[in-house]
């Protein structure tokens, strides 16, 4: 909608004068130049060959006419895309959906909303802005300025707006105009809200042209992960789905990628990923690449994880009776939902399965016992089933076996059988603290035989399921990080009908032995408290849930259907061992386009700024006149010296960036002339200057005091520059610096792996640690470091080689003192050397040092060597500066000489100096 309007249209009448100008100009030839020329004698009598040049050439006329026309039109004040919305009056309500679908173009929505607010403010209208994802609350119209601040604080929410109907009820009774910045989707209750808004006054809707994409939860089918994306029907589109998860070193990265193709007008597209189980189990989330919204992210939970389970049965009594084998039902129940590991016990333990099931196995060799114990300690789940052999054995009889949760009575008991009194027992409802709490108990599950536990003080706490008579059915004991669970009946139908029932499968699920392939339903979740572990924001970014209270399973199961909402954010919820993902988009969430009544004004959300063309036109006129001067000079032959001047002038005016033109090679040569300390350019010029000055100060001190004689420090653009030339990078963190690209991360990781060191400095040592929350710099550091291959860290231990690589130091102040300095964690098994105050730590130069002391400012000197920033107060401050220089020197020494000083050869000399 390119429109043109003029502020003073009557000036355009001036264009009529153009033809007159044409005639006038045409009549006047360019004036001749007078030249003194003694050899004129020789010219006398020479006639011109043609006499055309006494009229102005037509192109010069055209140029002049155009210039004048441009000036006239320019002064008439043309405006492109004028705001021609009819000004309204009365209060104005700005309605934002604020759901996940808004997130991808939230800044544009905010721009638009701000523009509308500003417009209303200029028109003196009171305004209000509501976000429909919020819980409905009374709307009050206020000054536009008052809303501008509140608007800025609004962020998209990780769920769809749900309370349309409630909002419709709570809207003010007075009449008002409304602007609805819609996300383009239909949400329940929309009609009611639409009607209400229309009844109050004029409704204008703004629709974003950007398509909305949503990713449904991943499903596991036939050994493949099936991914479905939904959208509003439109043209063909190609997207990528990426699976993210931790790599073996625990760093979150892209694990797999699959293309996704939407046919024209197709609402959904499917793709599948075939991942090896190791990789599949690591996937945390799937996301649509390039779609910055919570709807385009699908967190994965247990349903995608396939546990490795080893089932070890006792030797069968007789051959050829598979239905009676202790492990038959287990295999039946587990095959569809888990990866079974076959083999003997000593074979499967090294395969490190998640679960080992021992079905009626009583005798274990000491080697097997030790192996199992170690494996359980590390987090394995040992599930044992009772059986005739267990009942007959002496296992855990007199004293508790380490691999049994309880002591057993001899022989077990039999009820309701042919040779016994009483009815077969049924199950008692599961107690509150039991993982089975909430599971419905079918009537037909009976137990006719069981092993009995010795009454012990611990028995009650270890019982997680019992029969109606109170005898334990399932007991559990935690060992280290793992647990041992004993089911007091057999895994086949010999002793009870439990393995035949659906409850058996559910119980296995609850024990996280098996996982359900599909999304959990209400029954699975009921009765448990689910605590959010990670939650998503509207943009689809995960963060730690912190101390958010858990929710009841019933609430969660409802949210699974209706989607997350206020107070129940999308994220990963956990109960004991099980995890359930609450995604914004469920498998059934409908993505339908919002329809608007015919009389609604619908506009694009693009804020087309009214653009005044006056300046452009006048500039054009000026340029044309300048050109005309040159052309006129050329025509009249006076261009000679002027042309040279013009070329010179142009060359001077030509913008040139000296830095941009320095070729890489030059920088490489500079960097390899000697040791060069480098800093990472943050994009903040003042910060970079401080970094440079800091490294200059440190370089000077190194020249003065050590054999290290660095060249002038250099700034590094991570995206462009090669890092291999620098041994050391100083990286100050600013809250708004750019996250490095993947290529830059690859370069950085290579740099770290090949012996480079990065000194991260959050420069917030003055405030860090006082406020409870992390500082913006700290958050930025986390964000940056997440892509780096950084080993586990620890605060610098007292005997770290950095404390003695050149100077003997106890603390490491920069401009701020007392902050913790983190380095690579030392080998936990390092032993304290005999008679020495140090441990034997001979390996590893720490690849990173992380601190907040703002070292660069302490080191910074101007070109005359005078410190640029005060440190501390008075002489104590100068002492602190000295120590900070010493720290810097130690760091560089550590980088350049490694752990040479850690070598025990030097210890006696060091001891002597330490006076010990």
């Amino acid at each position: 909608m390119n429109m043109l309007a003029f502020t003073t249209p009557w000036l355009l009448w001036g264009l009529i004068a153009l033809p007159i100008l044409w005639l006038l100009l045409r009549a006047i030839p360019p004036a001749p130049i007078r030249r003194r020329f003694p050899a004129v004698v020789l010219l006398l009598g020479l006639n011109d060959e043609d006499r055309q040049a006494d009229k102005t050439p037509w192109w010069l006329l055209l140029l002049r006419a155009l210039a004048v026309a441009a000036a006239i039109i320019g002064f008439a004040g043309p405006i492109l895309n004028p705001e021609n919305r009819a000004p309204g009056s009365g209060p104005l309500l700005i309605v934002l959906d604020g759901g996940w679908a808004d997130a991808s173009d939230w800044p544009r929505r905010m721009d638009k909303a701000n523009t509308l607010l500003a417009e209303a403010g200029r028109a003196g209208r009171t305004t209000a802005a509501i976000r429909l994802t919020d819980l409905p609350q009374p709307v009050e119209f206020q000054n536009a300025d008052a809303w501008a601040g509140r608007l800025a604080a609004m962020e998209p929410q990780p769920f769809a707006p749900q309370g349309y109907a409630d909002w419709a009820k709570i809207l003010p009774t007075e009449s008002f105009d409304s602007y609805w910045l819609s996300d383009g989707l239909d949400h329940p209750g929309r009609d009611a809200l639409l009607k209400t808004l229309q009844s109050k006054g004029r409704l204008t809707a703004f629709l974003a042209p950007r398509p909305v994409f949503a990713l449904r939860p991943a499903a596991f089918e036939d050994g493949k992960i099936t991914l479905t994306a939904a959208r509003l029907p439109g043209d063909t589109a190609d997207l990528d789905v990426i699976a993210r998860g931790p790599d073996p070193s625990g760093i979150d990265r892209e694990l797999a990628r699959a293309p996704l193709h939407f046919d024209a007008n197709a609402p959904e597209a499917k793709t599948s990923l075939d991942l090896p189980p190791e990789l599949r189990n690591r996937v945390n989330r799937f996301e649509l690449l390039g779609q910055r919204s919570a709807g385009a992210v699908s967190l994965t939970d247990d349903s995608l994880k396939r546990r490795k389970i080893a089932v070890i049965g006792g030797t069968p009594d007789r051959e050829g009776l598979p239905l009676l084998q202790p492990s038959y039902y287990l295999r039946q129940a587990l095959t569809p939902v888990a990866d079974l590991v076959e083999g003997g016990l000593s074979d499967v333990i090294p395969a490190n399965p998640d679960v080992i099931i021992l079905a009626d196995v009583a005798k274990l060799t000491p080697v097997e016992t030790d192996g199992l114990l170690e494996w359980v300690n590390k987090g394995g789940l040992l599930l044992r089933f009772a059986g005739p052999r267990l009942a007959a054995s002496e296992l855990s009889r007199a004293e508790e076996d380490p691999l049994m949760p309880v002591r057993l009575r001899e022989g077990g008991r039999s009820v309701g059988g042919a040779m016994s009194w009483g009815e077969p027992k049924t199950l008692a409802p599961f107690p509150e603290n039991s993982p089975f709490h909430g599971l419905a108990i079918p009537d037909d599950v009976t137990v006719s035989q069981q092993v009995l536990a010795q009454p012990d003080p611990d028995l009650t706490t270890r019982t997680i399921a019992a029969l109606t008579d109170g005898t334990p059915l399932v007991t559990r004991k935690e060992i280290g990080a793992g647990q041992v669970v004993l089911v007091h009946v057999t895994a086949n139908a010999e002793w009870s009908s439990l393995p035949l029932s659906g409850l058996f499968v559910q119980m296995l699920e609850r024990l996280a032995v098996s996982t359900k392939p599909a999304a959990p339903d209400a029954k699975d979740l009921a009765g448990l408290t689910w605590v959010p572990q990670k939650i998503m924001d509207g943009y689809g970014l995960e963060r730690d849930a912190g101390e958010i209270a858990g929710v009841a399973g019933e609430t969660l199961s409802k949210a699974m259907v209706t989607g997350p909402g206020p107070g129940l954010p999308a994220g990963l919820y956990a109960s004991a061992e099980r995890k359930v993902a609450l995604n914004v988009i469920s498998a059934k969430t409908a993505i339908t386009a919002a329809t608007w009544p015919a009389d609604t004004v619908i506009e694009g959300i693009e804020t087309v700024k009214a653009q005044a063309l006056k300046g452009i036109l006048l500039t054009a006129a000026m340029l044309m006149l300048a050109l005309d001067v040159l052309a006129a000079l050329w025509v009249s032959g006076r261009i000679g010296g002027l042309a040279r001047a013009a070329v010179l002038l142009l060359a001077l005016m030509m913008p040139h960036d000296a830095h941009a033109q320095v070729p890489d090679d030059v920088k490489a040569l500079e960097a390899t002339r000697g040791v060069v300390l480098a800093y990472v350019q943050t994009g903040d010029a003042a910060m970079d200057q401080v970094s440079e000055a800091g490294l200059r100060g440190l370089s000077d001190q190194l020249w003065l005091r050590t054999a290290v004689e660095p060249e002038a420090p250099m700034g590094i653009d991570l995206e462009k520059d090669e890092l291999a030339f620098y041994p050391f990078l100083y990286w100050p963190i600013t809250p708004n610096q750019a996250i490095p690209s993947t290529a830059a991360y690859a370069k950085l990781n290579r740099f770290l792996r090949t012996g480079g060191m990065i000194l991260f400095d959050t420069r917030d040592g003055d405030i860090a640690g006082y406020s409870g929350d992390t500082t913006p710099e700290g958050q930025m550091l986390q964000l940056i470091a997440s892509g780096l291959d950084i080993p586990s860290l620890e605060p610098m231990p007292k005997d770290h080689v950095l404390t003695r690589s050149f100077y003997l130091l106890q603390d490491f102040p920069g401009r701020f003192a007392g902050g913790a300095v983190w380095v690579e964690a030392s080998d936990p098994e390092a032993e304290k050397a005999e008679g020495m105050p140090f441990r034997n730590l001979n390996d590893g130069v720490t690849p990173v040092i992380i601190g907040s002391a703002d070292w660069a400012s302490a080191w910074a000197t101007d070109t005359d060597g005078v410190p640029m920033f005060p440190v501390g107060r008075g002489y104590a401050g100068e002492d602190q500066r000295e120590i900070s220089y010493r720290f810097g020197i130690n760091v560089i020494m550590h980088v350049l000489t490694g752990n040479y000083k850690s070598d025990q050869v030097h210890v006696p000399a060091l001891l002597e100096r330490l006076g010990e």
Partner: protein
Amino acid sequence: MSISTDLRARAETLGQSLPALLAEAEHLAATLMLGEHGRRRAGQGDEFWQYRPAHQGDAARSIDWRRSAKSDAHFVREREWQAAQSVTLWVDAARSMAFSGDRDRAPKLDRARLLALALSVLLLRGGERVGLSGTTPKPGRAQIMALVEGLSSDNPDDYGTPDVAGMVSHGRAVFLSDFLGNLDPLETGLTLASDRGVRGVLLQVLDPAEEDFPYQGRTVFESMQGSLRHETQSAGDLRARYLDRLAERKARLATLARAMGWHYHCHHTGQSAQTALLWAYSALEGGR
């Protein structure tokens, strides 16, 4: 006065750069040495000519006792008769010579004066008599001042004509001008001069602009005093024809010079003054 001292200083500088040339010329032919030209007979001079037996009437002090002691007769040491040349300089000081095609280039007149004075310095140093046209040529370094004074005067006319009235017979003459004015008076003057046995040099001094005609567009060309004017719409178109005419004029000058036994040379103010000086110097010697 300051202008003339400046001119003198520059001329001296230019003259000083030529001793090597002098030495070379000396080496080639002692007789062709500028200045005291030997007459191949005994007479007044500094150079040894011959010993002859003493005659009656020879003064006793003219006897060369060293030679006489070698034999029984008395010998007199005779010197070669040497005489100096008279060189008359004419430098065209008309307005046309004040032209310079470029702000950074000195006018033609400056160059002409410089050449004339440098030549004078050389000639005077060689013992010749030098004078401006209309004055009597005189020897000696003191003459330089007189020459400087004489060269400082300007001619208000557009184009100058040589004055051959006071020329010493069988002397030498140097005409420095752009020769852009009417050539007829020059022809007359030259004829008159050659009748008197005067030989010499026509040194045409032109500005590169006059040689190239680098003008474009609508232009009115005027002579320096405005007495002549020519208007053109497209100066560039005239260039070829102008150059033809210039070549024609040069050819005429060369022909004229040859006919009279003179030498003609065209010098541009864009060139080094030394080449012109060297040429004039050797041309005055009668070579080439």
